[in-house]
């Protein structure tokens, strides 16, 4: 996979490739229509949905205003339940902590559930590099691991692939097990068979977290496959990797967010599995992990508090903005070249990286506002993308020609007489390029327009000329 710098040009190139990939396009169409319709239905069935969104937004604001306090409360509650919390400033630090836990508990076989924070850390690669046997247990993630790819979507990581892709992958990597043909059921059986062996072997289960509950020290996790539960139930050691903004004050808050999460993501009332993990196995109990560790990653997030980007910390990773974004629909998740794709990724990714990497993804939006419309916690994504554009413009990271043109246009607009003359000139130039009232080929910047569509020729006079004539 290309890491990419996220420049407009790189995104443009990557999206062009994606648009020419028919399989991908079919998969993206299915994703958007499927999840889009399911969400619409789920919301129609829940009249209080908008009221819940407002409440969720308030609770997020409140929690972020008191974030250090709730994180401290969470740590204490985890400790009371016999677990530990570890703090990491950077993904690298978080990886080292997890490795340290593997060493401490003498674990070499690790089963991992999908976690975007895990992706942010590139945790599986890191542990594999260190010498551990790490297997992704989310079916989508497992397929990606075999293909050495990265997720293209937050909740449906392998959405860019179809059944044929998966059958090919299994044929190529499962050896003699890979004989189940191309039927979906056979493929699932095949993966299940493989993964069950790994679950039985595992000494450590690594999961992500959807919510961290400060009052009880509970980690709330939703899945549709039950793979996280299987890992945590069988392995003696449970390690949670999460980012700091996932903390919520109370269990009641967690349930409020859960009501919004699945409906926004997949259109389900609630996901198939909703697991609450609190601490390690109690004395005298017969199940649960022997140890319970939570690694909390900051990764640049605390810098967003009190900044213009703070609201992106409201995000509950439902993927609704991806599922409804017309740009994401064409480009696919990989084109973004960042861990987090789509509109939320265009806002969050640059904040998680050093310097200006990925910042230009904010250009890849028409500001149609659909992402904000569907966001369950009402994050004003276009506004936040505009802030990144302002930063890029302000510190000269946006392309030179673009800045010159913007400044030139603004200057021209402040001089109405000159503006009128330039528009008149433009009008006559455009007319000269036209045939039968249409322009089919423009030079320079206009080439982008006429690449795939025509442009109507302007009439002989502008409105202002006609208006003046009439006076």
């Amino acid at each position: 996979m290309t890491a990419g710098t996220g420049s407009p040009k790189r995104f443009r190139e990557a999206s062009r490739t994606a648009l020419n990939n028919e399989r991908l396009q079919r998969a993206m169409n299915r994703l958007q229509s499927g999840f889009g319709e399911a969400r619409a239905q789920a919301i129609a069935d829940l009249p209080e949905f908008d009221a819940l969104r407002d409440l969720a937004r308030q609770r997020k604001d409140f929690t972020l205003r008191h974030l250090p306090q709730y994180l401290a409360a969470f740590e204490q509650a985890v400790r009371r339940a016999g677990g530990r919390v570890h703090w990491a400033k950077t993904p690298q630090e978080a990886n080292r902590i997890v490795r340290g836990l593997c060493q401490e508990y003498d674990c070499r076989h690790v089963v991992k559930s999908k976690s975007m924070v895990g992706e942010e850390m590139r945790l599986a690669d890191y542990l594999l590099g260190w010498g551990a046997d790490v297997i992704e247990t989310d079916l989508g993630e497992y397929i990606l691991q075999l293909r050495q790819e990265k997720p293209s979507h937050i909740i449906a990581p392998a959405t860019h692939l179809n059944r044929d892709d998966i059958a090919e992958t299994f044929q190529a990597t499962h050896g003699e097990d890979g004989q189940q043909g191309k039927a979906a059921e056979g493929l699932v059986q095949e993966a299940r068979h493989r993964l069950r062996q790994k679950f039985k072997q595992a000494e450590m289960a690594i999961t992500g977290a959807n919510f961290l509950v400060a009052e009880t020290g509970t980690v709330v996790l939703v899945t549709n496959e039950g793979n996280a539960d299987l890992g945590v139930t069988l392995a003696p050691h449970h390690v949670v990797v999460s980012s700091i903004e996932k903390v919520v004050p109370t269990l009641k808050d967690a349930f409020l967010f859960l009501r919004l999460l699945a409906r926004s993501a997949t259109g389900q009332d609630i996901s198939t599995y909703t697991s609450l993990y609190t601490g390690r196995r109690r004395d005298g109990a017969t199940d649960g992990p022997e140890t319970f560790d939570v690694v909390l990653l900051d990764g640049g997030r605390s810098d967003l508090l009190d900044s213009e980007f703070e609201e992106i910390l409201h995000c509950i990773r439902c993927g609704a903005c991806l599922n409804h974004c017309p740009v994401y629909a064409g480009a696919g998740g990989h084109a973004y070249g960042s861990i987090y794709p789509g509109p939320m990724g265009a806002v969050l990714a640059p904040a998680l990286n050093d310097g200006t990497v990925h910042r230009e993804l904010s250009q890849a939006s028409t500001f149609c506002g659909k992402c904000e419309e569907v966001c369950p916690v009402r994050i004003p994504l276009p506004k936040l993308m505009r802030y990144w554009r302002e930063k890029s413009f302000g510190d000269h990271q946006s392309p030179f020609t673009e800045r010159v043109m913007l400044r030139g246009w603004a200057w021209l607009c402040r001089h109405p007489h000159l503006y009128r003359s330039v528009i008149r000139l433009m009008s006559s130039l455009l007319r000269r390029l036209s045939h039968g009232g249409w322009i089919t080929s423009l030079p320079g910047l206009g080439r982008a327009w006429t690449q795939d569509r025509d442009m109507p020729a302007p009439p002989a006079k502008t409105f202002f000329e006609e208006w003046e004539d009439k006076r």
Partner: protein
Amino acid sequence: MPQSSTSKKSAAGLWVTCLVNLFRPSVAWAVVRLLNQAGIDVIVPKHQTCCGQPSYNGGDRSNARRAARQVIRQFERLDYMVVPSGSCAAMIRKHYPELLKEDRDWSARANNLAAKCYELTEFLNHVAGYDGTQVSSLKATYHDSCSGLRELNLKTAPRDLLGRVRGLELVEMRDAERCCGFGGAFCLKYPELSNDMVSRKIRNIMDSGAECVIAGDLGCLMTLEGKLHRLGHRIRGYHIAEILAGMEGDA
């Protein structure tokens, strides 16, 4: 909603968008006709240029502020400001107050203008009143432009108005609310994605069986018409002002 009840005739300042001025003056003339029919004087402030959207969305906030102040100065003394574009109207209504909120002198003036700035269809629907017109039988579909729809909530106003046009049959296309791919500079920066988006719209327009597509923003309309023309389809595009003013024949 208030019809002008006093003897003094109301005056509305007409905002002529950059695209309307250059590419489609008929839209502005249609607005003039519609406002005059409602008994409103139309004033076209002479020094208007651009509302500042390119600067604002391009990240140049200080030039966007300058544009905002320039527009406010020209329109603030009029009774109303009428804008035949959802995106320019949203810029003035939603973004000017935000842009100037920390400026002690200008904040109130921005709010004042925002309060009397109307997108055309909401003005006709809620303030001026619209008696309808007659067109020769036309089957049309309406494209919801993003800014108008999501920033100004213009879902029902245009449809209400089109419902008063005799001879016009409105059919809804699939995903009428989905972006056409124009997006200002977006269509120039990412032409392939923009083309993907407009191509989807064209399929939906074709599937609707309409003979023409109507929109409230010229940017969308030029994108849709340009693609229809390139593909050789005979479906025409109209700005809603042209239809409401009964100018579909000569547009």
